């Protein structure tokens, strides 16, 4: 199953180290075939491949797909310990020069390998990803390789990838966002491709100027950084973003300065599920109204507002544990995958996502997303750069109170009483926080996200008088 089109020829693939053309790929794959045949490919049960954004890793990936060898895509951040999950029997390392891969390829036994046992993972055609779940017990996401490819075709169609496209992938290809929406769609079309390893804003601007992409994957953080820096970009591109929510004003400013910013909604289990409009529906795009990809079904549990459920023709097959044994999944029933996200029906098959179900509370009979309240505050107040909202029990233990910690935007001031007053006039009463703390700087984790646990510890106080909420 060689997935690249035969007529891609002179179109090129590049990374921080090398440039090759699609015409080079067949010979480079033959070099890999020779290596794997010499190393008794038939005996490989599951190979761990460190998924760095490099051409050599892409070539290995193409080979493994074409030969239907099972592989686990390991995040570069998780390889420092030197081992992979016990279901992997071998670890593959490779250098950065595609034309001398033979000298740098190395297969090693995984010291943690547990033997095949009763492992669910079939003899070939499997891809495994780490789960972002936080249950404490490692869980892995198992795909059939053909489903992964089919999943990527959904991105091709939605974003209009074609051979003439120039695709910039600065996000990790070891995750479904970079792989399923960037790398694989580009390869499937034979598009020009530029990978950035360990992206930073300087590298990003460098490639925007030199590579001139027309399809660019961008994290919300980099999007915000570009706005902070305020430099023009010569490329005319659409930007596909995923992950944390982007404020409406950031959305508008980015679109006006750089071009269409399309939000992708998805997860590792389902791949790409939906996007904001790719046409000129600016208002809907800034409001985060999502349109499912072709053949993907989405429904909201309970009708108007509730958990987002998804049925995908090319989703994952199942979860497996670290030994490769199948893990029952209560999340998937009747073919509908429960995303654990809370959403609302937006009509005509479209929907919006408010936040994680874990961050939802029942307040006087209304299901409220704490992320949605935070988002409302950020959109309503230019004075607030970021808000974190959490619940707290009122003294009688019956009614759930809301506390908001709001970080001031630079150059603004906001008084807490005034903020609550404006909330009362602009928000439904069920969303209005009982207590608003305005802070200059909020506690943050190393990755820059608010440190929710510290903030709760710092600001949790009992709401003594429920009449405070008017």
């Amino acid at each position, binding site marked *: 199953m060689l997935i690249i089109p035969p007529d891609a020829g002179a179109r090129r693939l590049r990374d921080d180290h090398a440039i090759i053309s699609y015409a080079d790929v067949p010979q480079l794959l033959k070099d890999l075939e020779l290596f794997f045949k010499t190393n008794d490919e038939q005996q490989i049960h599951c190979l761990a491949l460190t998924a760095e954004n490099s051409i050599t890793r892409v070539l290995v990936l193409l080979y493994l797909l074409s030969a239907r060898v099972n592989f686990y895509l390991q995040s570069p951040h998780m390889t420092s310990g030197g081992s992979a999950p016990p279901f992997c029997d071998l670890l593959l390392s490779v250098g950065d020069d595609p034309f001398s891969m033979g000298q740098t390829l190395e297969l090693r036994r995984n010291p943690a390998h547990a033997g095949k046992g009763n492992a669910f993972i079939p003899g070939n055609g499997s891809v495994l990803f780490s789960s972002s779940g936080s249950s404490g017990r490692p869980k892995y996401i198992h795909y059939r390789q053909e489903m992964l490819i089919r999943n990527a075709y959904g991105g091709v169609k939605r974003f209009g990838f074609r051979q003439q496209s120039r695709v910039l992938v600065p996000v990790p290809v070891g995750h479904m966002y970079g792989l399923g929406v960037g790398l694989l769609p580009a390869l499937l079309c034979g598009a020009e491709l530029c990978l950035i390893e*360990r992206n930073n804003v300087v590298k990003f601007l460098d490639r925007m*100027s030199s590579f001139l992409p027309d399809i660019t994957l961008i994290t919300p*953080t980099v999007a915000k950084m570009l706005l902070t820096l305020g*430099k023009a970009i*010569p490329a005319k591109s659409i930007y596909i973003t995923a992950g944390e929510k982007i404020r409406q004003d950031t959305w508008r400013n980015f679109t006006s300065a750089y071009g269409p910013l399309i939000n992708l909604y998805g997860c590792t289990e389902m791949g790409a599920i939906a996007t904001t409009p790719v046409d000129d529906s600016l208002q809907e795009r800034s409001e985060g109204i999502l349109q499912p990809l072709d053949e993907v079904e989405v429904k909201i549990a309970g009708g108007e507002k509730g958990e987002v459920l998804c049925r995908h023709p090319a989703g994952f097959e199942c979860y497996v544990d670290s030994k490769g044994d199948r893990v029952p999944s209560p999340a998937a029933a009747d073919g509908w995958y429960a995303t654990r996200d809370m959403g609302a029906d937006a009509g005509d098959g479209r929907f919006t996502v408010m936040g994680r179900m874990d961050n939802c509370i029942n307040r006087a009979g209304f299901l409220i997303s704490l992320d949605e309240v935070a988002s409302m505050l950020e959109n309503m107040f230019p004075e607030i750069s970021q808000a974190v909202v959490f619940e707290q029990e009122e003294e009688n233990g019956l009614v759930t109170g809301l506390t908001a910690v709001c970080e001031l935007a630079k150059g603004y001031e906001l008084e807490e009483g005034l903020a609550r007053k404006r909330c009362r006039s602009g928000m439904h009463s069920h969303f209005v926080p009982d207590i608003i703390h305005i802070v200059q700087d909020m506690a943050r984790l190393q990755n820059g996200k608010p440190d929710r646990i510290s903030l709760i510890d710092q600001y949790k106080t009992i709401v003594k008088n429920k009449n405070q909420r008017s």
Partner: protein
Amino acid sequence: MKAFNPEEVKHQLKEIIVNDLDMSIDMQDIDDNASLYDDGLGLDSIAIINFIVLIEKKFGISFNENEISARLFSSINNLADFVGSRASVSSQPLKSL
């Protein structure tokens, strides 16, 4: 027009890194040839943005979008050469931050 001494520019750049970017490093430990990224000083994206903004303020220059390149930020030497030449042209006095 004031022509900047390259050593003076390097010193100013290191001062920004140590004093304004809050890097836990002494000025004398910054190698002029070391990368500013992961494999050198380890500036992350947010630090690099702040660095660019501070350089523009302090030297009274503005980077054009196509001038912000990986090569330029690959060492203090490269950056100092560029900033020195641009600052000389703009002929603005150095500003204290």
